[in-house]
């Protein structure tokens, strides 16, 4: 009796849940996929709330704070008292030697109290207080020598527009010294807050993902649908062309397209998008070829459905599963390749807080300030890993026939 009820319940449940629900449930059972989703959610949140999360303007140069290591970085974090003369020298030389650097940083602390008195809370960690901090500094005519750059109005975010309205409050280079700003991940060799740059870089990476995957998705799907559905000469023509595109090594083709279109992030996104088209076309075409032989397509055809209806209502929706997986995976590739183009100097350009550009910039200071080159790479791995984990999980969950 009981077992019968159970059975009924199971049947009921089975009828209730749709295919998508099933896939979703399977996805949630996959721990790695959930981890990937959490990572991506984090990435998206960071990207959306970048102005709130980032303590500083990502392109603002904090003069005197060049190459500050994170407070928790490395063994050189020992307290050292250094004469003031050494401090001055080392700040001018930026980060020639991290030990001297460290010395100047710690000896600079002696002036912290002095500055605190001048400019109120200068920690600048919560971003809400940051512009106010800047203003109080400038109104104080501060002798602390904290410059605010007035040149990057185009790239700075609204929240930081106030920076540009300020005059230069600093003094000569020899007067520059460490501010007592708190830099979670330190600053780069130009004196820009690394954490803020990475946070803003998340926006760029996601944008690259959406735009370039969007291009490959739309064009590739269209070509794949047409190719698979109509077959014949159109199919041969399209797919041979796709084969040729595929036989160029991925990064090489992207470099070529950027060289033709000109450098810059928008063109890099277009290039990555174009390079990704053949993969989508192949996946969709393969799926269409198998779906169009199904009986329900034949049934719709006998009922008088035209080609547009057949493609959009029957064939396309039933080809979605591998397309979703391909899309997720393509995000990972797109982010990696955009960073690679940025690194080679072909993608986003210098002050932009793009992760690849940051890695390229950090090369010159690699030996003296290794944290600058470490963190952007970790950021790239984090986001790419997220997409790869989710993609793997989706592949398993969308194809229930595949045993795990």
């Amino acid at each position, binding site marked *: 009796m009981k077992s019968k009820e159970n059975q009924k319940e199971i049947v009921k449940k089975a009828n209730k849940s749709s295919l998508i629900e099933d896939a979703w449930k399977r996805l949630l059972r996959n721990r790695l996929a959930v981890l990937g989703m959490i990572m991506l959610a984090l990435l998206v949140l960071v990207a959306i709330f970048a102005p709130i999360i980032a303590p500083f303007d990502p392109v603002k140069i904090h003069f005197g704070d060049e190459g500050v290591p994170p407070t928790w970085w490395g063994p050189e974090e020992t307290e050292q008292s250094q004469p003031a003369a050494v401090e001055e020298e080392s700040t001018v030389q930026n980060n020639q030697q991290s030990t001297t650097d460290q010395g100047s940083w710690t000896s600079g602390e002696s002036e912290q109290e002095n500055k605190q008195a001048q400019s109120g809370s200068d920690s600048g960690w919560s971003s809400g207080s940051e512009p106010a901090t800047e203003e109080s500094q400038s109104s104080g005519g501060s002798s602390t020598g904290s410059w605010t750059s007035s040149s990057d109005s185009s790239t700075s975010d609204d929240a930081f527009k106030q920076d540009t309205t300020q005059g230069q409050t600093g003094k000569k280079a020899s007067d520059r010294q460490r501010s007592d700003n708190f830099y979670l991940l330190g600053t780069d060799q130009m004196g820009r807050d690394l954490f803020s740059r990475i946070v803003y870089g998340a926006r760029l990476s996601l944008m690259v993902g959406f735009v370039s995957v969007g291009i490959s998705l739309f064009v590739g799907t269209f070509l794949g649908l047409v190719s698979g559905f109509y077959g014949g000469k159109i199919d041969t023509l399209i797919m041979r062309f796709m084969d*040729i595109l595929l*036989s*160029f*090594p*991925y*990064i*090489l083709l992207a*470099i*070529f397209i950027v*060289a*033709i279109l*000109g450098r810059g992030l928008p063109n890099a996104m277009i290039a990555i998008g174009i390079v990704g088209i053949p993969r989508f076309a192949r996946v969709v075409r393969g799926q269409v070829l198998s779906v169009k032989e199904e009986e329900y397509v034949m049934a719709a055809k006998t009922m008088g459905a035209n080609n547009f209806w057949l493609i959009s209502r029957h064939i396309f929706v039933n080809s979605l599963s591998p397309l979703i997986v391909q899309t997720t995976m393509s995000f*990972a590739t797109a982010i*990696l390749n955009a*960073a*690679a183009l940025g*690194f*080679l*100097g072909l993608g986003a350009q210098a002050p932009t807080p793009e992760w*690849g550009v940051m*890695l390229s910039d950090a*090369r010159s200071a*690699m*030996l003296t300030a*290794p944290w600058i*080159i*470490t963190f*952007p*790479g970790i950021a*790239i*791995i984090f986001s*790419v*890993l997220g997409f*790869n*984990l989710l993609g793997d999980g989706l592949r398993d969950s969308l194809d229930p026939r595949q*045993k795990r």
Partner: protein
Amino acid sequence: MLRYIIKRLLYIIPVLLIMSFLIFGMVDLIPGDPAQIMLGQHVSEEALEAARERMGLDDPFLVRYGRFLTDIVRLDFGESLISKRPVATVLKEKLPATIELSTFAMIYALLVGGLAGVISAWKQNSIFDYISITIALFGISMPIYWLGFMLILFFAVFLNILPTAGRLAAEIDPASLQTHFYLIESLVTGKWEIFRSAAKHIILPGIALGTIPMAIIARMTRSSLLDVLRQDYMRTARAKGLKFRDVFVHAIKNAAIPITTVFGMQFGRLMAGAVLTETVFAWPGMGKWLLDGILQRDFPVVIGATLTVTFLFVLVNLVTDLTYSLLDPRIKY
């Protein structure tokens, strides 16, 4: 079989023709006047005009393409606009560097990745399995140039046991070698001093370059082995009383085809993927050369290098296809 090989080799010719047309066309689309690049900024309009005339830049596209084709058939790639050296000569220096590097990288990838994949599949869900899956996942998610920097920081700076860049130590004169296959030639001729230096220099870039293929091969090996082990004939073999070890050896043979495919594709891709690694390690190979060519708009270099790389790519794919019949006797051509 022989017929098939000949057929495939002949098939390369139209492919290369289309490729050369596309490459020539794409390079032609890159903005920049070769005459201007060759002569520099401060030249008179007359001199530019004369150079254009001499180089035939004013001819229609198809005429220039035709001339280019007749040149490359004789393996004449022209000369660099900037260094003025013949592209074919530079190619002879750059190509061996890249071939050595990518071969080393692929051997590393196949050994480490293949072994990790096999053990993962054998001891599925063991700790080793989890560790190697995790490493493989990181491997495919990592920018290789970043990995290169990390390797330099750890092995060259922190431990100080390996050099950071280049192919040979500065005190060794490359002219003492006949070819540009430093590693292979010094090994064959027994110049151990040079061999040790060359080997030391190739380790870090080789690992950096080979990591993505390594990760992909590890994943592929594991999943295709697991696929094969689930087949009915495997269960039958086990049911008949064969030991797992014996069954496993069969499985490796059957899983070899997808692994070979991945191996071939990755190897072909490495030839060009070396752009990033060669930039990081200042490796004087094709990738760095090609990138510099594009950045400086040195068109003959770009065409020559790209054509060579794509040719190698097509060739590796052909060899991959041919290996199938060796691995699986059912595949007959």
